[in-house]
C-alpha cells in the first residue's frame, strides 16, 4: 500500500514522563477508509499517543504523519481535516450547544460555520441546540462532541474512549454512527479498552500494552493467529476425553455441557484429522466437530498473558 493509503503513520514514537515511558517506540499505520481500533488496558498509553498526534503534547522522540503531512511541522494543515474527541468532550457550560460549536467553528475554516446546523442534526441535537450545555446529559455531551468534530468535514475522526459513560442504547447508537462515518469514506481511529466495542466496530486493530504496540492487523487475521480450539461431542465423552488427553498435539482439554473443548498446540490441520480418526477407530459416534470461534478478547488475553510471562 502506498503512503497515501495511510491517514496516520508513526515511526519510533516515544513519550516519556521522567523515567516512565507512556508510549514506547510505536510504529503505527492506520489505513484510509477503515474503522481502526487502538486497543489496550487503562494506562497503556492510548490517550498519550492521541494527544501527541493532535499536538496537545510534544513527543519525546519519533516522527508522525497525519493525512500524509508531517506533524508538528504541518500540524495546522493536517488538523484542518481531522475531528477529534479526546477523553471526555469539554464545553463552556454557560453557553448553548450551538454557541459552543460557533466558538470552535471560529477557529476553523470559514465554511465550518455553515456546517453547524447539519452537524447538530446529524447527532440528533437540533431541538436542544439552544439550551445551555450545563443542562445536557453525558450522552448529549458526547453527541455534541461528535457534532463539533464534524465541523471540520473530517477525513479522519479520532475518538478516544467515545462510549465512556453511555448507556447500552447510547453505545448502540454510537456504533451505528461510527460505521456510518466509515461508509461515507471517512477514517475512524477509535481508542478503547473495551474489546467487545472494538471488535464490533472496527476493521483493523492495534493492541497496545505498556506503551508498546504488541499486535497489529485486521481483526480476523489477529484472531486467526490464536491457538486453534475445537468443540467436539461424541457418543461417549468420557472415553473421548481419555483419547484427547493422551494425544501429544492437544494443549488442553476441558469438558463442557455441550461437549469437549480441545485446544491444539501444534500442526492444527493434521492433529484434527488424527483426532477424528482415533474417535472413529474407538467406535465412538461423532456428533459435533467444529472449530470454536476465536474472539479478539481471547487473542488479547493470550498476547498480554504471554507478555506477563516474558516479564
Amino acid at each position, binding site marked *: 500500500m502506498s503512503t497515501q493509503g495511510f491517514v496516520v503513520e508513526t515511526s519510533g514514537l516515544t513519550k516519556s514522563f521522567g523515567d516512565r515511558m507512556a508510549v514506547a517506540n510505536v510504529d503505527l499505520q492506520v489505513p484510509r477508509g477503515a474503522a481502526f481500533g487502538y486497543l489496550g488496558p487503562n494506562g497503556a498509553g492510548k490517550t498519550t499517543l492521541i*494527544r501527541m498526534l*493532535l499536538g496537545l*503534547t510534544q513527543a519525546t522522540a519519533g516522527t508522525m504523519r497525519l493525512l500524509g503531512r508531517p506533524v508538528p511541522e504541518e500540524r495546522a494543515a493536517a488538523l484542518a481535516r*481531522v475531528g477529534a474527541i*479526546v477523553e471526555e468532550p469539554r*464545553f463552556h457550560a454557560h453557553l448553548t450547544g450551538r454557541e459552543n460549536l460557533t*466558538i470552535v467553528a*471560529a*477557529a476553523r475554516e470559514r465554511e465550518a460555520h455553515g456546517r453547524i446546523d447539519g452537524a447538530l442534526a446529524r447527532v440528533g441535537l437540533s431541538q436542544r441546540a439552544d439550551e445551555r450545555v450545563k443542562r445536557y446529559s453525558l450522552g448529549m455531551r458526547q453527541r455534541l462532541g461528535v457534532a463539533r468534530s464534524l465541523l471540520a468535514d473530517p477525513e479522519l475522526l479520532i475518538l478516544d474512549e467515545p462510549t465512556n459513560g453511555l448507556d447500552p442504547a447510547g453505545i448502540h447508537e454510537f456504533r451505528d454512527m461510527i460505521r456510518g462515518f466509515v461508509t461515507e469514506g471517512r477514517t475512524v481511529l477509535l481508542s478503547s479498552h473495551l474489546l467487545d466495542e472494538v471488535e464490533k466496530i472496527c476493521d483493523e486493530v492495534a493492541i497496545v500494552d505498556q506503551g508498546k504496540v504488541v499486535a497489529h492487523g485486521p481483526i480476523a487475521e489477529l484472531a486467526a493467529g490464536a491457538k486453534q480450539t475445537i468443540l467436539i461431542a461424541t457418543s461417549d465423552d468420557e472415553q473421548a476425553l481419555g483419547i484427547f488427553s493422551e494425544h501429544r498435539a492437544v494443549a488442553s482439554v476441558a469438558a463442557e455441557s455441550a461437549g469437549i473443548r480441545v485446544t491444539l498446540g501444534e500442526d492444527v490441520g493434521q492433529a484434527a484429522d488424527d483426532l477424528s480418526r482415533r474417535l472413529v477407530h474407538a467406535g465412538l459416534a461423532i456428533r459435533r466437530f467444529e472449530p470454536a470461534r476465536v474472539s479478539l478478547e481471547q487473542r488479547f488475553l493470550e498476547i498480554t498473558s504471554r507478555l506477563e510471562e516474558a516479564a
Partner: protein
Amino acid sequence: MSTTTVTAELSARRTRVPRRPRLVSAEFLKLRRRRGLVGAGLALTVLPMVVAYTILLIIHAANPAKHGPAGGLQNFTDSMDVLTTLSGIAAVLIGTTLGASDLSSGVFRELVVTGRSRLALFGARLPAGLAFLWAFVGAGFAATATASVAFAGSLHAPGAALLVETAAWLALVTALSLVLALGVSSVLGSRGTTIGIVIGWQIVAAPLLLQIKTLGSLREGLLGAAIEGVEPGALFTGPAHVAMSITAAVGVIVAWTVVPLAVGAWRTATRDA
C-alpha cells in the same frame, strides 16, 4: 441607475464594512454570555456612579445651603478616583476570565485540536476583552461626565478637553489591568488564584512599595509610578511619589504591557493542552 449598478455598489459597500475577526467575536461571545461577569461589570462601573450622583442630587435638593450641586469639577475628580479603582477590579475579573476560562473548562484542548495557531487563540483575547471592558467603563465614564456637567449648577464644570483626556487615561489604566490579569492567568491557568495575586499586587503591594522611599529609583519600574506620570493634571492633586519623565513613564507602561502579554502568549503556546 440600473439595478445591476445598485447591487454592485451595495455589494462593494458591504465588503468595505470592517468585519470583526471570527476568533475575536468568539471570545466576546464567551464573555457576554457570562451573567455573573456582566453583573459584576455593571456593579463596578455604571452602578456606583449612578448611585453616587443620585445621592448627591438628593442631598443637594434636600439642603442646598449645606450641600453643593451634584456636578462640578471636584465631584468629577472624586468620582474618577472611585471609578478608576473599581474599573481596575472589573478589568482584573475580565482579564482573568479571558486567560483562564478555556483552560479551566477544558475547551482550550478542543480549540488546539482544530490546528489553529495557539498564538492566534491567545491574540484574539485582548481585543475581545478590551471591547467588553470598555463597554462598561465607557458607560460608567459617560454617566460620570454627563452628571458632572449637567448638575454643575454654579460650580465650575469639567471642560471638553479634560473629559477627553480623562477618558483616554481611564481607558489606558483599565487596559493595563486587563493585560496584567490576562497575562498572569494565562500562565497560572487559574482564575481565582490570579484574581487574588493581581488585586493583592495592585491594591496592596504596589502602593506600599511606592511609599517606601528607600527603594529610590527602583520605584520607577512600578506601574503605579508610571501611571501617575501620565495622569491628567486636573485629576492628580497630590505630589508625585516618584518624579519621572514622560518618556520614562511611557517606557514603563510599554514594558508592563509587553511583558505580561509575551509571557502569557509563550505559556499558551508551550503548555500541554
